[in-house]
């Protein structure tokens, strides 16, 4: 009979797999932590299509960054928890001036309406939520849960695009990620699948500390709101 776990390291009664012996790892969950941060991008893409959603998303992120003057790229929702209201009001004015405030507000309205404590409500306005907002969020979540779905892939792709366009991402020439625009063919070409794979791998770093500063209050509010709206009963 063959020996099992020959590649594991034994310390006392604990068998550790090889990867975990390479360093100090922290568990991170794409579903638990990344979705609440990035769902606004998915909603933009859904409403406006990939090209226009990406374009508008980039403009929004650029404007906020210019106003706050930070090095950080404001692609994640928790970012907006820590910005001063004064700066966010300036961002609102500039978005209106550029003529993109209303279209973004309307595209992400299910998020703003359902989650009253969403930090983006400090920039945009919301109304009392409707059942259609709930249904919209649910159907978006279903698509985002699968990290290999088109919706999740394009959302993560947008994050990489924002970082690249604003000079925060340096890519090696010839690497699949340097062909980011070809992601639009996902999953129908080998190249788009390679790009997607690179994006998924990178996202574990980009959507976690210390790259971003998650607002635990926002993340808890995001998940618990769903629970309150539609309790998990038996």
């Amino acid at each position, binding site marked *: *009979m063959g020996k099992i776990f020959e590649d594991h390291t034994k310390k006392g009664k604990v068998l550790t797999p090889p990867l975990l012996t390479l360093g100090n790892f922290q568990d991170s969950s794409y*579903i*638990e932590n990344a979705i609440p941060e990035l769902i606004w991008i998915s909603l933009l893409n859904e409403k406006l299509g990939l090209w226009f959603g990406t374009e508008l998303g980039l403009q929004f992120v650029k404007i906020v960054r210019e106003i706050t003057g930070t090095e950080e790229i404001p692609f994640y929702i928790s970012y907006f928890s820590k910005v001063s209201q004064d700066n966010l009001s300036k961002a609102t004015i500039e978005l209106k001036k550029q003529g993109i405030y209303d279209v973004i507000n309307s595209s992400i309205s299910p998020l703003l309406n359902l989650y009253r404590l969403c930090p983006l409500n400090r920039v945009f306005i919301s109304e009392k939520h409707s059942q259609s907002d709930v249904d919209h969020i649910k*159907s978006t*979540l*279903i698509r985002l*849960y699968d990290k290999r779905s088109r919706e999740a892939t394009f959302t993560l792709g947008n994050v990489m695009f924002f970082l690249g366009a604003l000079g925060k991402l340096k890519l090696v020439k010839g690497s699949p990620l340097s062909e980011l625009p070809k992601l639009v063919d996902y999953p129908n070409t080998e190249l788009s699948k390679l790009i997607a794979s690179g994006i998924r791998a990178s996202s574990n770093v980009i959507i976690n500390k210390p790259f971003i500063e998650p607002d635990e209050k926002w993340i808890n509010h995001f998940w618990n709101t*769903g*629970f309150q709206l539609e309790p998990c009963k*038996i």
Partner: protein
Amino acid sequence: MTVINISALINRYIENINKDLKKRWNIWEKDLADKEIYDVIGGIISRQTALTIQFVKSPSIWNGEIAPIFLRSMADNYINLAWILISPKERSKEFILHGLGQMKLNLEHRRNQIESEGKDANKDKLIEFEEEFINSQRYTFLTEVNLGSWSGKSMRAMALEANCIDFYNYVYQPFSSCVHSTWGHISRYNVIVSDNPLHRFMYKPNIIEFEPDIFYLELAAKYLAKSISAFDNKFKIKIEEDSSDQLLQKELDNIIAENE
């Protein structure tokens, strides 16, 4: 779905395994100088038979949720038997002494509990009975309490020594998760994932209504047959008839063939 009545089959099987136990006990050559061997090994086979009888009488527990509780107990019993059979005289004595020590321990806990309630433990009938029962075998004041395993070894080590490590790995271990209600068992049998996307794949309580699965009946019969076979091999018992397990299997095969 076809409903098949197997109560007659179960009754016949129970009758057969009762006969198997009696036959073997009665023809087994005994030497009172080694009384403990017969006490313990006879007791273990009796226990295995009793477990099987209670199990087969209860089709409502022939499912993955409950059956492993019984079957793991049978597996435990089998490994004990297999290990004792390597050196029956010495190991039967150890088995008894350890068991008496456990009973003495339980007695002291019970005494403690009664006294903590402000009652007189000396007047408790259950304590009196338990103490007399232990004393009938060995005086409690001469009985050691061993807090470790009865054999001084892990179940795995015993299985290795008794040449049934596969049985340990593929039966005893997997069924342990049911016995101990680990997450491995609970996540399969007692919860279901919420299909509401707002719930982030939360597991919620779920009670399954099981149909009896004959597979578990077959397993119980198999483990009893394995125990009987180990006994027969060790003590050179030769019984020419088909074993109860074989008879059961033939009957089951016929029923299935008739209903296909």
